[in-house]
């Protein structure tokens, strides 16, 4: 079977459980198991070849640009691990079928499990470190789901998060390490990396890479000081613990250390970091395990300890130690998985995992007892069981290790670790199964059904078989796997029970003896342990997480506290600072242009503008006054435009100005009329400083700009030259607007149209909310003057509106050749309509409005767009204009330009948008009691006249 298929099968299979769960739990389990079994068979097919020393490869390009490819290879190490993952996985699937209760969503469980399995297989088969990283992180994610599987348990959620945080952190460090590694070698392919030991170890980046990679390994394999997550992950259902924490996930770190052993090991850095960490972890884990009353916690810490042991072996950096490590990986997987499953059985049957509430189960659960005894003795390192073999070899390897020249430290600590290992292993057996039967078990214990005990039993059998016939059982596997780790000649070693009388034997005996003594002394020691104050990893972690989350929250909410004033201040300062830095980093030549003379008229304008501006700031709290002052500023600006040869701008500015003021007045009607004093003087000083800085910067930039010349000729020379011959108009600004840059104008009218739609939509939503109800019900302001629709105003409007419309038509028609155009005309017409609204009121005027403003906007957009599209029929781009002169007899020569049709669109859009906006806004003022006025004016004495007098 192709390697990619082996890796992909669990992922593809992950879809099955969800589908199969409807066919029942057993069918679901079988479907899941068959997936794993298929993959396992596919793997084993390759075993003979791998045993022969071949390396099976599979390559598929994924992201060649990055060097991330779907490259897999299968060597001895991969075979060993993949076999463990799939083999034990198969047993776990069967076991879980019986372990999980009816309430547990089994489909989900198997899905997560297969995802995890796939990720693990992916790690061990990857021939590309980036690919491996993906699988690596996937194990973190899928284990997050598995650990948190019982989501109603807070421990499950917390344990899952903790595991994810710690292993996730390691995984991210690993990314850094792998990238460096790939960087040094120039390839992310593992086979390439593994051939470049010298290059890697000589690189100055070796140490950072090593540290980052080891961070990944240590966190995954629960090495001190990252060991604390593992026990908390025990909140997971036991099949998960058995799988993840005996055979697979925690072994991923070991796998990676083994995988990279050929290129990373052998340096003092490697030795001191890896071996020391392993040693400490081994001893610490064993010590804590002794004092754990929870079966699974005990097993978890024992796992920590054994992982430490294997890490230490890999850390020694010697080929022999590496072989031992591989061997112990196999052994640990077998006995620890069996023990976890048995612990699960005990929990399942007695409804407790507390050793202090157990004891005497030997009689009630003989089968379980047998399994636990076999596996437990193996864990203790008692002869005839496989754990003994690798422990002896470990002690042997430890005697060869010198720590900073000290030859007894490592062996002594290794023995100490072994001693505690013996103690907790025996405690597990003795305190749970031996002793008198009790009558206060939470549930009546008995052995489970075959399906549940068979998987651990099978492992127990393996424990014994390997223990008795190591060479026969696993000799070839150890050899191939080890040679893959070492990447060269295997050292001398032999897998057998009796190695003769050597140092290791004495250390072993001491460990067993000491362990039994410790067990005997357990009660007082336990009391002392409970009394002793020691750092609780979970408390520390929780406190840290709380602190970090709290700090994150404080920082986030503190920075983004919704204070617009601060955001604006930061914005302004950032712009000023960045702009100034850019300016002072460059050079600015002396002024090239001579300043124009200052005439009296502009000087007056300037004085007025400055005074109005200053007053606006000074009196800004009086809102009406500041609005008036703003109107003055606008007026001066538009006159300034007129003065500075921009009549079109003057017209536009002034007409926009009045609509803006009307808009603001409509709004101000509902807003407070005064702005309260809220800023202290320090704050005002700060704001003033920013304002002055900004003013100086902009003023300075303006001056520099005004006194300099274009460095190259401006493109507008073209516009001046082609306005008449190309665009058919003499008002170059208008020709630019409707022709040269008509597309800008198209966007601009759409902006206006959108503005009106937004205003309309918002008005609707406010008026349809409780606010609208409140607005309608609000009492009439007794301070309002009477006379809503004054007679004089109405009459004046009747005359002025037609005149204004006429002016609008005039301005529109002349726009192409003289100042004016659709935009200004639109505003004038809108102003005329507003006048009507102001005179006779909203209801009366709206009732006489024949075309909805929405429609006018849309028609405007259409007119503009279809004028543009029209040019497609002449095979010209959008908005290509054409113009011509036509004779209409009584009126003389007329110019017609398509640009004028475009301008009609502009006109319509402006009228529609302005009116829709104002109309929407004025609807706020409607009160519930308001009657639509039937008359254009409130006072009309002619209504009292007899009918004939009116007709006369």
């Amino acid at each position, binding site marked *: 079977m192709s390697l990619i298929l082996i890796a992909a099968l669990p992922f593809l299979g992950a879809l099955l459980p969800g589908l199969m769960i409807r066919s029942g739990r057993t069918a679901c389990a079988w479907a899941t198991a068959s997936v794993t079994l298929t993959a396992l068979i596919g793997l084993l097919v390759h075993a003979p070849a791998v045993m022969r020393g071949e390396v099976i490869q599979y390559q598929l390009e994924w992201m060649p640009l990055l060097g991330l490819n779907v490259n897999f290879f299968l060597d001895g190490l991969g075979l060993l691990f993949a076999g463990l993952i799939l083999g034990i996985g198969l047993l776990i699937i069967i076991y879980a079928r019986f372990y999980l209760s009816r309430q547990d969503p089994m489909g989900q469980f198997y899905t997560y499990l297969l995802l995890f399995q796939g990720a693990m297989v992916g790690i061990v088969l990857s021939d590309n470190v980036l690919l491996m990283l993906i699988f690596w992180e996937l194990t973190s994610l899928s284990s997050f789901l598995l650990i948190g599987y019982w989501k109603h348990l807070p421990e499950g959620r917390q344990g899952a998060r903790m595991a994810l945080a710690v292993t996730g952190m390691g995984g991210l460090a690993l990314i850094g390490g792998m990238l460096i590694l790939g960087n040094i070698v120039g390839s992310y392919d593992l086979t390439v990396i593994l051939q470049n030991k010298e290059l890697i170890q000589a690189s100055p980046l070796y140490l950072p890479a090593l540290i980052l990679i080891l961070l990944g390994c240590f966190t995954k394999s629960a090495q001190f000081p990252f060991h604390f997550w593992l026990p908390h992950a025990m909140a997971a259902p036991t099949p998960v613990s058995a799988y993840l924490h005996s055979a697979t996930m925690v072994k991923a770190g070991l796998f990676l250390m083994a995988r990279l052993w050929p290129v990373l090991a052998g340096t003092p850095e490697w030795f001191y970091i890896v071996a020391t960490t392993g040693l400490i972890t081994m001893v610490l884990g064993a010590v804590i395990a002794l004092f754990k009353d929870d079966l699974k916690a005990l097993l978890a810490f024992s796992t920590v300890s054994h992982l430490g042991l294997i890490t230490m072996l890999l850390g020694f950096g010697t080929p022999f130690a590496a072989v031992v490590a591989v061997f112990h990986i196999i052994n640990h997987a077998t006995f620890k998985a069996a023990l976890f499953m048995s612990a699960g059985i005990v929990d399942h049957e007695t409804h407790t995992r507390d050793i202090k509430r157990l004891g005497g189960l030997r009689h009630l659960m003989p089968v379980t007892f047998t399994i636990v005894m076999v596996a437990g003795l193996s864990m203790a390192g008692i002869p005839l069981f496989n754990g003994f073999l690798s422990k002896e070899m470990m002690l042997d390897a430890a005697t060869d290790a010198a720590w900073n020249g000290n030859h007894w430290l490592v062996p002594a600590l290794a023995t100490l670790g072994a001693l505690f290992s013996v103690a907790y292993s025996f405690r597990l057996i003795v305190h749970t199964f031996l002793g008198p039967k009790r009558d206060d078990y939470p549930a009546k214990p008995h052995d489970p059904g075959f399906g549940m005990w068979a998987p651990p039993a099978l492992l127990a059998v393996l424990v014994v078989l390997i223990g008795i016939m190591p060479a026969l059982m696993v000799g070839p596997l150890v050899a191939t796997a080890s040679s893959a780790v070492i990447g060269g000649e295997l050292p001398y070693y032999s897998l057998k029970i009796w190695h003769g009388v050597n140092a290791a034997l004495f250390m072993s005996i001491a460990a067993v003896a000491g362990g039994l003594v410790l067990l005997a002394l357990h009660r007082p020691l336990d009391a002392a342990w409970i009394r002793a104050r020691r750092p609780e990893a979970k408390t520390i972690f929780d406190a840290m997480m709380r602190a970090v989350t709290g700090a994150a929250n404080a920082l986030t909410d503190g920075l983004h506290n919704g204070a617009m004033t601060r955001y604006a201040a930061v914005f302004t300062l950032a712009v000023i600072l960045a702009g100034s830095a850019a300016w002072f980093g460059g050079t600015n030549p002396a002024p090239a242009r001579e300043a124009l003379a200052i005439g009296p008229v502009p000087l007056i304008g300037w004085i007025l503008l400055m005074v109005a501006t200053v007053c606006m700031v000074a009196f800004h709290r009086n809102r009406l006054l500041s609005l008036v002052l703003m109107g003055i500023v606008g007026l001066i600006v538009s006159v300034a435009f007129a003065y500075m040869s921009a009549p079109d701008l003057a017209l536009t500015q002034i007409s926009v100005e009045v609509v803006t003021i009307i808009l603001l007045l409509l709004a101000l009607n509902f807003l407070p009329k005064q702005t309260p004093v809220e800023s202290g003087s320090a704050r005002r000083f700060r704001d003033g400083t920013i304002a002055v800085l900004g003013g100086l910067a902009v003023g300075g930039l303006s001056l520099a700009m005004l006194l300099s010349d274009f460095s190259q000729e401006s493109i507008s020379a073209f516009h001046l030259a082609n306005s008449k011959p190309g665009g058919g108009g003499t008002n170059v600004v208008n020709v630019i607007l409707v022709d040269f840059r008509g597309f800008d104008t198209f966007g601009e009218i759409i902006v206006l149209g959108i503005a009106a739609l937004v205003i309309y939509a918002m008005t609707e939503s406010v008026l349809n909310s409780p606010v609208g109800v409140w607005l309608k019900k609000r009492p009439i302001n007794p301070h309002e003057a009477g*006379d809503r629709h*004054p007679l004089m*105003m109405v009459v004046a409007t009747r005359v002025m509106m037609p005149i204004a419309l006429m002016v609008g038509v005039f301005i529109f028609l002349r726009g192409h050749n003289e100042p004016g155009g659709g935009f200004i005309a639109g505003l004038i017409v809108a102003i005329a309509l507003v006048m009507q609204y102001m005179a006779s009121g909203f209801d009366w005027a709206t009732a006489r409005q024949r075309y909805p403003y929405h429609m006018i906007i849309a028609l405007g957009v259409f007119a503009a767009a279809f004028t543009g599209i029209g040019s497609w029929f002449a095979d010209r781009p959008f908005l290509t204009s054409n113009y011509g002169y036509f004779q209409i007899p009584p009126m003389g020569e007329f110019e017609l330009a398509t640009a004028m049709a475009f301008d009609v669109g502009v006109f319509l859009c402006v009228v529609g948008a302005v009116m829709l906006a104002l109309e929407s806004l004025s609807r706020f003022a409607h009160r519930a009691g308001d009657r639509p006025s039937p008359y254009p004016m409130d006072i009309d004495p002619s209504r009292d006249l007899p009918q004939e007098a009116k007709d006369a």
Partner: protein
Amino acid sequence: MSADMALWQEIVLAVFLVTAGIFGLVGSFGLIKLPDPMTRLHAPTKATTLGVGGVLIASMLYFFFAKGHLSFHELMITLFLFLTAPITAHFLAKANLHTDVNRDAVPPPAGDRPWAGFESDEARRIAEDKASKGA
């Protein structure tokens, strides 16, 4: 301003301009000098209108003298100002009546309903209802 003109033309123009300037200035001065809002209202509505009117006539004459072409634009502005000035004044007077004026000092109208600005919406509604019932 390069056009050549006869002296009398210049004098005529100057008279209009100077008069206009004086009136413009007086109007704005009155705005500051006069004692209460209602009296202040008189100053600009009249003096200023005439001031700007003078300038507009001067401009019309200028273009006629200088270019021989009678411009109507100025006439239009003048017309417009004359049309709007009373409305503006009317509104401002109403505003003054509303905010600053002692209502007792204002003589009552001939009929039984008050000045429009003094009649509340509620009172107007009642009066209108009564009128429509009577009709």
